[in-house]
């Protein structure tokens, strides 16, 4: 994958089928986590704390009230971002040659959000807690995935920011 280019109102990148399969697998794990979180699974709830932080820091009552009102809707919207991330990748994964993914601006923003959520969850598994942590010593390949997703998100910021 070499990064996105703007084409009219769209953003286009060419991916290897193997890259698309990895990203779909990550996106599907994220979707599953949201589904489990909505179902009240305690392990999923724990994993989602970094993606769904409290809205009040020193007021547990206000934080609980806000969770009650906002958490479900937020998870549903985040599940939507995850789906918008995986769906366009399926045609690439099914191909035998490098294939283009084309996104609208809204699609590109959904990708940035889904990628950001994936990085937050990977960071938790990699034990990244302060600036400068790079997650070495995590599960095999996880630090590389974390860095690759950072590159993709930064690339999307770049292409969305580029003068048109």
């Amino acid at each position, binding site marked *: 994958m070499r990064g996105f280019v703007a084409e009219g109102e769209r953003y286009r990148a060419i991916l290897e089928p193997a890259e698309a399969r990895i990203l779909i697998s990550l996106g599907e794990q994220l979707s599953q986590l949201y589904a489990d979180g909505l179902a009240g699974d305690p392990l999923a709830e724990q994993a989602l704390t970094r993606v769904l932080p409290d809205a*009040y820091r020193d007021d547990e009552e206000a934080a609980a009230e806000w969770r009650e009102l*906002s958490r479900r809707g937020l998870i549903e919207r985040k599940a939507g971002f995850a789906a918008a991330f995986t769906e366009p990748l399926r045609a690439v994964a099914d191909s035998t040659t490098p294939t283009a993914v084309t996104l609208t601006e809204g699609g590109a923003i959904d990708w940035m959000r889904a990628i950001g*959520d994936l990085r937050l969850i990977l960071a938790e598994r990699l034990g990244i807690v302060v600036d400068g942590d790079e997650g070495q010593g995590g599960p095999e390949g996880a630090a590389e995935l974390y860095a690759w997703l950072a590159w993709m998100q930064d690339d999307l*910021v770049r292409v969305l920011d580029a003068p048109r």
Partner: protein
Amino acid sequence: MTTAPTLDASRVELPLHAAEVPWRTVVWNDPVNLMSYVSWVFRRHFGFDQPTAERLMMQVHTDGRAVLAEGNREQMERHVEAMHEYGLWATVEKVER
């Protein structure tokens, strides 16, 4: 027919002046989100120009937090929800007076 009620002026609540609104949206530093992305989110959501967004992003990075908005509680909760949609760590807090 009825008459207009007599208003007790001392009990009429005036809307808060913008400078007096007591809530704010704070974004906290985290070791995961990219500086380029955070700056982009500040521009996209709050409509800041590039230098302002960069300055606030650097403030989050170096001071650990920055105030992104002040206003009534409902507005601040909407900002925080939007920040959470973008994966940023944001909270609502009362302005100390």
